[in-house]
């Protein structure tokens, strides 16, 4: 290996590491607020990437139908309880349905293929982000106080459903979107690929935005309070249901954005999201599912290891990435004093 290849691999590693870091952050966020290990996080990535690739290939935006279906399902699930109280379901649910219908009409009438890439990305986000809170309401809100294992199983089951739906919507062929911009940036002997710069730039921007959100806005502080102590936050008037929806919306946003970012870099299939999110999860766990900076660092490291092991032993790439956590676990188990989690 010469330094040229090393630099190339390092770039690749940093790119995927940045994506893993974003996913790790949103997994930690959702977990600490709702106790849900968001296994379907990867599907948001798939959706984002597929929406971009689909629009550029001139395919109809099937995701808008999924959004419409979810909005209708949530409304239908709220009907029995509302009818018992002789009232119509909350205006918000009707609003979401109207939004989904409007978005669908808009997408059917826009010349999607000719739109600038930024508008395409916005449309993709407009379809995927509302799915987060909808899925929270449909799947997790009714069992919000259940045992963590029940939440985990529901989360895995939801992942299965979404992968199945994803196959229906996008088919079994892989898809890849066009790069955001052409030329790279040459710094001395090193040439940075344009997409790498995009990924790293957007990741850093998002990290800063999240930092500002959680430290300087009331909503962000409310979410943090819920993460620290659910009951206490609820007693202070913070709705845990709202916190759950907000965290799922953020997760869907981060997932979809990650998908948009990597879509030009690699060919994605209907089920590719899972393995990507799993690596984010490995990163999250290196941060003990609690610390954001450590989780991001761990995820970055995984990206680098993956990239270099692709070069040296591509057959064993996944094996290396996933057995890498063993020494890490050893370190944790030697340094952590045992603490019990009371169920």
């Amino acid at each position: 290996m010469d330094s040229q290849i090393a630099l190339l691999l390092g770039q690749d590693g940093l790119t995927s590491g940045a994506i893993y870091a974003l996913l790790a952050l949103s997994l930690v966020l959702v977990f600490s607020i709702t106790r849900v290990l968001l296994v379907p996080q990867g599907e948001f990535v798939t959706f984002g990437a597929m929406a971009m690739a689909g629009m550029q290939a001139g395919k109809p935006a099937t995701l808008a139908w999924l959004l419409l279906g979810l909005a209708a399902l949530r409304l239908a699930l709220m009907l029995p309880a509302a009818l018992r109280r002789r009232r119509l379901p909350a205006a918000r649910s009707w609003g979401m349905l109207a939004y989904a219908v409007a978005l669908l009409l808009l997408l059917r009438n826009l010349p999607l293929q000719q739109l600038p890439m930024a508008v395409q990305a916005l449309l993709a986000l407009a379809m995927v982000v509302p799915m987060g809170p909808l899925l929270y309401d449909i799947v997790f809100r009714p069992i919000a106080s259940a045992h963590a294992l029940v939440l985990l199983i529901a989360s895995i089951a939801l992942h299965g459903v979404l992968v199945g739906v994803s196959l229906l919507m996008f088919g079994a062929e892989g898809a890849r979107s066009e790069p955001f911009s052409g030329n790279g940036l040459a710094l001395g002997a090193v040439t940075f690929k344009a997409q790498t710069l995009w990924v790293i730039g957007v990741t850093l921007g998002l990290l800063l935005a999240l930092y500002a959100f959680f430290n300087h806005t009331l909503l962000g502080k409310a979410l943090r309070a819920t993460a620290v102590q659910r009951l206490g936050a609820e007693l202070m008037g913070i709705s845990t249901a709202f916190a759950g929806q907000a965290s799922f919306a953020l997760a869907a946003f981060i997932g979809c954005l990650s998908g948009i970012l990597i879509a030009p870099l690699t060919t994605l299939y209907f089920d590719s999201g899972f393995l990507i999110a799993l690596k984010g999860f490995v990163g999250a766990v290196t941060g003990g599912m609690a610390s954001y900076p450590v989780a991001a660092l761990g995820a970055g490291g995984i990206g680098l290891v993956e990239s270099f092991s692709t070069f040296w032993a591509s057959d064993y790439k996944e094996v290396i990435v996933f057995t890498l956590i063993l020494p890490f676990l050893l370190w944790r188990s030697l340094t952590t004093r045992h603490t019990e989690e009371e169920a």
Partner: protein
Amino acid sequence: MSYVPPSNLHDGGPAAVARRLPAARVLLIALVLALAAVPLLPAFYVTLFNNIGLAALVVLGVVLLTGVAGMTSFGQAAFVGTGAYATAWIASASALPAWLAWAGGSPWFALLAGLLVTLCVAGLLGVLTLRLSGHYLPLGTIAWGIAVYYLFGTFQSLGGHNGLANLPALQLGAWTLERGEQMFYLIWLLVLASGWALHNLLDSRSGRAIRALNGGQAMAASMGVDVFRAKLAAFLLAALLASLSGWLYVYTQRFVSPTPFGVNQGIDYLFMALIGGAAQLWGAVVGAGLFILAKDWLQDWLPRIFGETGNFEAIVFGVLIILVMHRAPTGVVGWLSQRFGPGRTPVRHPAPNAPAAALARRPLPPRGSTVLEARGLTRRFGGLVANNDINLALHAGEILAVIGPNGAGKSTLFNQLSCCDMPSAGEVRFHGRSVAGWSARQIAAAGLARTFQHVKLLPRMSVLENVALGAHLRVRPGLARSMLRLDRLEEARLLAEARHQLERVGLGAHAHVEAGNLSLGQQRLLEIARALCADPSVLLLDEPAAGLRHAEKQALAALLGRLREEGMAVLLVEHDMDFVMGLVDRVVVVVFGEKIVEGLPAAVQSDPRVLEAYLGACA
């Protein structure tokens, strides 16, 4: 001293037997009879039932690990794969290196090798993750599951992604098990045997320790349970069952490839346990059966309804699982027994006719000798000093009370004395030895037993079983003996001791009630009985009289008085002054983390510093 195994005969005489034959036993007999008839069905159904049996074996382990012990593993399919590949590698003698050729084709050697490799891998994963909090085991097993899947696919000696085919049939001595219905009997024999062994295990000393893992780890450690070891035992047992299933899989399919051992299959096993009901062993068979039948049925029908494109059964399955989690999180068996069963009744342990031999007792130290001592004990939580330079001594044959207003640091003191917490400075001495660095388990083994301010018991276990947990260290039958029911003599002695202590605290009539159904006062008495079961020389009671009625308090005071007569040392934290002042020998008053007064009850009661602490400045 003859031992009569506890059975229903002792409950109501022979006439009652027919009426009392428990529903579970009737079900079991019906199941075995129905199973015996399965090979009469067409071959397709035999194959289906073979698959159900293979899965049920794995799911039994998942029930033990997840439903009973509260741990989650995604790697069970990988353990099945470990067992299967070890077997296939040895069975297909062509793949073997020369130095192992002598073992080629031996199913016993294959079984042994599969179990050993599984034991090593599961042991490594367990040692790495089980000391950590909950999420590391799922992560470790996911990573292992994925890694092993790719390994199976890349090793050319294991056939790569194509796998190993044309494996020989199972040859047990003179028998060759070639056809599906022959394997059927072997598979289901092993399922029933494993279920029986696990059933025995759960109803034993080691089983109670495993059952305590789900929500009672701190308490169990204070009763002398080695929590890590209990976790490891449950994890290894589950992995071994999976590996055994892999061994059977090879001889049933005569073919292995990496596909059935990926993480998705690991998740399926978890689904099966949850659908069936992870809290009962029955759930394993029911869950595996429902899952495999439903999957087969859906794969058959969905394409006819929706056409061939798409993976509809994954969608329908996911939705079904979510519905089960919403409507019946206890699974089908749990739901059935809630709806139609007699309600959950804990296992009954009727008293045997012949009294069991009493357990050996610890010699108590001579009356008046110092048994427990705190020297300059200080505990800081960040900037808060919860205990500051506290000195006290407890002597054999005395009752010492620690009193003080709320927030004075009494429970912090208690936790340090019982090694549940470590002092920031100073030391605790037990029988003259420093206990610095000891775990709660070690000091429990040395003869200190405690109760908790916030009652810690296992609400779904019977009162008797909860109390028996206290005597965990007094008999030592191991896992294997428990599973084979060779532990009954020790078990009878242990339960007799638990029954005796229950009667001592006045709960004898409630032995078979679920502990969660007792009133708070009775739960406190249960904790005292549990502590006494450990045969301690020092008893630490955290607010034992809170929630007790007047008569119960009098009875408790009388019991503590008797214990003092026997030479036990009792330290109690209590707010009920009438109870304390009439009973104890000496009183220590703690205020804001400092000991302000120590002395006889009467002197303490009139001490101006105490009055000030409790009532504010009095002029």
